[in-house]
């Protein structure tokens, strides 16, 4: 029986982080879509919800991004009553930064850069492994 590939939305404005994270995700066999800022992420999530194509299985988001940051994107995604696990992947990793994301509605936080090991933990935590 074919197992559907996990669909991940990667939200990251800096190309180098996108390139590395994309490679980590693809190495794990997941299907990756990308958004370069929070507004694009919200739009993509909304389109998926409206289009009936099925929600993302996981959203990985940076914090600092132009147009809309990861915190606001998280709030807006949660306001759509989307239960997809959201994990912040950010260089801003002090306790107040982490708490801000959790308060916004994220499920977890991991400091950049994303590695195979970190992704493994995330996928296992949310039953996506």
């Amino acid at each position, binding site marked *: 029986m074919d197992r559907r590939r996990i669909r991940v939305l990667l939200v990251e404005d800096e190309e*180098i982080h996108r390139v590395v994270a994309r490679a980590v995700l693809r190495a794990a066999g997941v299907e990756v879509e990308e958004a370069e800022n929070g507004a694009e992420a919200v739009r993509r999530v909304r389109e998926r919800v409206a289009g009936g194509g099925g929600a993302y299985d996981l959203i990985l988001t940076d914090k600092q991004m132009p147009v809309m940051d990861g915190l606001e994107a998280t709030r807006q995604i949660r306001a759509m009553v989307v239960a997809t696990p959201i994990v912040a992947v950010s260089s801003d990793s002090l306790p107040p930064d982490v708490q801000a994301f959790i308060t916004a509605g994220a499920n977890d936080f991991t400091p950049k850069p994303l590695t195979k090991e970190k992704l493994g933990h995330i996928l296992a935590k949310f039953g996506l492994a």
Partner: protein
Amino acid sequence: MDYSNLRRQAASMKKGLFDQGHLDEQFRQVEDLQDEASPNFVEEVAVLFFKDSGRLISNLEQALEKYPRDFNRWDAYMQQLKGSCSSIGASRMKSECMSFKDNCGKGNVEGCMGCLQKLKREHAILRQKLESYFQLLRQAGPTGAATRPVM
């Protein structure tokens, strides 16, 4: 051409980069992502890093001039650069980024300037060493005529 000798030289050069603290474990993580589908992945990431970090250093230098004593702004720029360094495992550069941020926290302009100069030196050293390393890898690889991204 003695490819095995070239590969040994490349391995020794890489070991030196780690032993001297220029690179950390993250570089190995990036190497681990290289495969047949992306045979030049590490070098491509390095090219991207030096393009990105060059831009960020330039932005920071402009900010130091245009926004004197704006430590919050300077810190924000340096945070971006620190993140970029983390992505490839540029360990010594990352340390200088953190020292710069400490100096921002203390409101120490001279300290910030000193750190920036050290950061630029480390940037140049790492660039030169990685260029040499990748050149050696290209010579030692099975396809010596691989395309050469501009660093």
